[in-house]
């Protein structure tokens, strides 16, 4: 591993690429937490609702640590977290809308949270010091999410045909945009690989397929049969849409803005 990467030493395009990576991870964590929180009162069991609460809390903690990395860019993380317009959010596409049913939540736990963890592993193993020192704690917390995700995915895979069908449909809809996101090879992504900030997209995709493939096969989903698909917004490093307005009101804290004390 070569020397630690310092933001101040980067040229403008490389700084922008690193900022895009940090924002897309932070926003994804913020929205992942919101999507978990949607199910605090709607999960199949009280215990699972509590687990959703804990996972939401973890995701928001991860988001907060990731947003804090923007201090190195001379930005105010609080402003980034609370004052951006909808169209600047860069979370991964499958988090744009509320999960419609519990099967979709379970699919999201496995493939969306799973893809985020693969991306974070690549980030933690790179040259950006804040990622090297903060992301391992996030990944340790994600181990608990993974355990719950595996248990529920197996459970639904062995449940009624209706449950399996919902699980398969949700999984299949999430895979193409996540493969596009993980496997990004546009100019900004290539800069991050060239600087040693993260691993090549093809390697991340391969790691993701290896991580989730055996579990998805239990629901008769062949991850290798899916390819990246969907449009790409290079400014934000995701598809052209954005999360729904209600979720972003919550992400920004719009209704509580007058109470901010930070």
């Amino acid at each position, binding site marked *: 591993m070569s020397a630690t990467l310092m933001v101040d030493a980067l040229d403008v395009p490389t700084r922008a690429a690193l900022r895009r990576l940090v924002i897309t991870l932070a926003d994804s964590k913020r929205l992942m937490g919101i999507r978990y929180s949607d199910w605090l009162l709607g999960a199949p069991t009280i215990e699972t609702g509590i687990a959703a609460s804990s996972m939401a*809390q*973890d995701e*928001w*903690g*991860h988001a907060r640590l990731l947003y804090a990395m923007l*201090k190195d860019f001379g930005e105010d993380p609080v402003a980034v977290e609370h004052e951006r317009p909808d169209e600047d959010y860069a979370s991964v596409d499958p988090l744009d809308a509320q999960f419609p049913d519990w099967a979709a939540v379970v699919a999201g736990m496995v493939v969306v949270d799973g893809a985020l963890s693969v991306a974070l592993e690549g980030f933690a193993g790179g040259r950006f010091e804040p990622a090297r*020192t903060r992301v391992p*704690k996030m990944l340790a*917390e994600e181990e608990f999410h993974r355990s719950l995700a595996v248990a529920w995915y197996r459970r639904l895979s062995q449940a009624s045909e209706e449950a399996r069908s919902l699980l398969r449909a949700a999984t299949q809809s999430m895979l193409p945009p996540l493969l596009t996101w993980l496997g990004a090879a546009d100019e900004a992504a290539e800069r991050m690989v060239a600087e040693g900030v993260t691993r090549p997209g093809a390697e991340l995709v391969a790691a993701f397929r290896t991580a989730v493939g055996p579990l998805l096969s239990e629901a008769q989903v062949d991850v290798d049969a899916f390819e990246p698909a969907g449009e790409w917004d290079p400014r934000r490093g995701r598809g052209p849409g954005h999360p729904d307005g209600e979720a972003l009101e919550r992400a920004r804290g719009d209704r509580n803005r007058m109470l901010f004390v930070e």
Partner: protein
Amino acid sequence: MAVVLPLATRTAGAMEALPKRVTSHMSGGRDLWSPPLEAAPDDPEEAVWSALGEVLDPEIPVSLVELGLVYGVAVRDGRVEVRLTYTATACPCMEFIREDVADRLGQESWVREVRLVEVWDPPWTTDRITPDGRARLRRLGVGA
């Protein structure tokens, strides 16, 4: 992430402001804190460790030191730097802990400034709980 903590309670006398009797420990265990030292200690870092050993986790009466949350202490000219982590990235007690650390160290007349450096490397796990902390948790019915 580094935070310089205000020592708002040092001159006000946080202990004097507390009620004489409490039925349970107050935030950070401050009803059980030792009185401030009368003079600057010979070993200020050891004194800081000792003081932090009295600051309890807000959720369970085990000290930050026993939980293994304090990663390091440095003192120079009355300026104290504490390297601290939390059990979770979204620990809901972060603000309490920051205040409790500042208030406990701020009791000491020889402490001019407290700088809290929040670290996540290495990640905290229950392996970092000290034997004393583990024993105390067991007495409270908590396995670790």
